């Protein structure tokens, strides 16, 4: 109806990444609630329309069609790159604006879709930062481990390319583990055999946690460095504080580490409502997608073309939950975003 502004959220509410999807929903709904408490956007309240993409392309295509059918043409989502890709054309044909959250695959923005954006950085960006960081930490023999998911493998390949560019570095291992398993001792034994300075694991936090735990149990002390997929506080729970201590990962900053007012206020509200800070960076990135949409609507109204034009050209250094946000012509987020985090011996994520 005309009395509300509809913003779609396409997220994995069921399926393999349900936990991320639910966090995304909690985050975006809370932001909308806060905004509506203040009177909405220019006096009109915001309504979040959530559709489940089931962590799966086909369901995502249906979710997209459904949002479009409901007349929603400003959409946040979604998490997995392959799932996002399955919905891109549908939004594009309907002329809707889509702001992806966790989809880091480079290809998504090379198609030159006019209304596609993302608030997360791209794999190549992260790969570059990751290898530079590893290099600066003094690691030379690098083992890269991914999990065969589009995200992790993309990142791993970017990192591989970076490592191969640098004469001083050597790639001693490049392979994938099987996500969702419990026992990674076999692969750790194999990694031990190549004796790396560091293992760069590009996958997600459950596996990272298990790797840390099992490395600790087998008393093998080689540093493990993760990407932003491993930025989730559950990692420490899974690994155990002792095993997690010293673990490093690179990621966009967490809200608590930003001293912008929006980040600080929101974090308080979130903790008040859910009892804990958001568990992963991806829900925060989804929150930022909401924020930039709201900002655009405030300025130019709800017409997708206007919103898109605004995001492309007018939005500069917007203070988001993850730092300053601007988009380039392709819809990618610009600016250097990544920070290095380390787990201290109390199990906290500490910004380096």
């Amino acid at each position, binding site marked *: 109806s005309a009395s509300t502004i509809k913003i779609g959220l396409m997220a994995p509410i*069921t399926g*393999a990444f*349900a*936990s991320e*999807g*639910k966090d995304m929903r909690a985050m975006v709904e809370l932001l909308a609630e806060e905004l509506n408490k203040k009177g909405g956007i220019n006096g009109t309240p915001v309504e979040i329309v959530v559709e489940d993409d089931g962590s799966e392309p086909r369901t995502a295509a249906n979710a997209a069609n459904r949002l479009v059918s409901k007349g929603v043409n400003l959409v946040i989502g979604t998490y997995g790159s392959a799932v996002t890709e399955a919905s891109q054309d549908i939004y594009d044909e309907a002329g809707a604006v889509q702001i992806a959250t966790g989809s880091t695959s480079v290809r998504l923005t090379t198609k030159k879709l006019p209304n596609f954006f993302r608030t997360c950085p791209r794999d190549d960006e992260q790969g570059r930062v990751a290898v530079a960081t590893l290099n600066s930490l003094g690691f030379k023999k690098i083992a890269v481990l991914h999990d*065969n998911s589009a995200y992790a493998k993309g990142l791993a390949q970017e990192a591989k390319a970076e490592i191969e560019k640098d004469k001083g570095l050597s790639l001693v291992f490049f*392979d*994938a*583990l*099987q996500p*969702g*398993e*419990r*026992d990674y*001792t*076999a*692969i750790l*034994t*194999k990694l031990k*055999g190549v004796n790396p300075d560091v293992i760069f694991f590009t996958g997600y936090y*459950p596996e990272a*946690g*298990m790797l840390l*735990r099992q490395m600790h*149990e*087998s*008393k093998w002390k080689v540093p493990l460095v993760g990407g932003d997929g491993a930025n989730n506080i*559950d990692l420490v*729970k*899974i690994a*155990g504080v002792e095993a997690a201590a010293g673990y490093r990962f690179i990621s966009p900053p967490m809200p608590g580490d930003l001293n912008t007012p929006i980040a600080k206020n929101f974090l308080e509200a979130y903790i008040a409502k859910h009892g804990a800070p958001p*568990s992963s960076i991806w829900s925060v990135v989804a929150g930022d997608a909401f924020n930039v949409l709201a900002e655009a609507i405030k300025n130019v109204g709800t017409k997708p073309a206007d919103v898109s034009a605004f995001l492309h050209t007018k939005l500069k250094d917007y203070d988001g939950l993850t730092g300053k946000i601007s988009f380039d012509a392709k819809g990618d987020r610009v600016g250097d975003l990544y920070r290095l985090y380390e787990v201290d011996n109390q199990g906290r994520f500490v910004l380096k």
Partner: protein
Amino acid sequence: MEEFLQQLTNGLAVGGIYALIALGYTMVYGVLRLINFAHGDLFTLGAYLGFTLLASFGLSGVIGGLAGAGLLVLMALIFVGLVGVMLERAAYRPLRNSDRLSAVVSALGASIFLQNAMMLLYGARPQVYPVRLLPTASFMLMGVEIPFTRVLLFSSSLALMFLLFWFINRTRVGAAIRAVAIDQGAAKLVGIDVNRIISLVFLIGPALGGAAGVMVGLYYGQITHDMGLNYGLKAFIAAILGGIGNIPGAMLGGLLLGVIEALGTAYFAVGWKDAFAFLVLILILIVRPTGLLGERVADKI
């Protein structure tokens, strides 16, 4: 060589867990020929039950060490066993006289239901066992480090196998179970209470699955609502690989699967590990069409 031995023990540890789940699987499977998709989820249920007991009811303060672990396993054994009996009543008994594939689909529905029920109850995020009840000590053997827990896990699988084997093949009730598996009508004619036997089977099979769930929780710490899918599938494969309804076969199948996976990881591209495991499996079945230890078949024409 050392690495090989290390990988072998890695494989045996994983295989021991597959075997544990496969034993419960093969119980139900051998009797009803039911491809019980829900078995993996009953296993998960056991794991979550252990988690709840430890975390919510403050048991973590009370119990500790191996005795605590034993108590936990026992509770999962009973609870999940009862859930298994109820599941059979609700989802499988009405289909007992229909095509067996119908029960497979019902089991699939049950699996989806259980998995999502656990997701709604416990959330989609992985849960972690709050305390470690299992000892972390290990010993060296031929240059290979062997954690004590692995030995424990492995020997409990082995003990269970012998117990089950004895129960099925050497006891009166075991014979009744096998008779029911072959011909329920004829079983009734010799005075077997078929419903009771099937309930019993659905008590034992899921109970073993639930116990395995707790053990996995205790051993690895992290549990998720969807972990039953993978473990259930592996257990099913192990059961088939060993020969349908063959209890030592399920054990052997589970161990072999674990070892193949570990060796696939070690000497093959890691990303291809599962493909390698499946390939070996297919080759084994081509050579031995009724599994490693074979199924009892009586093809009289």
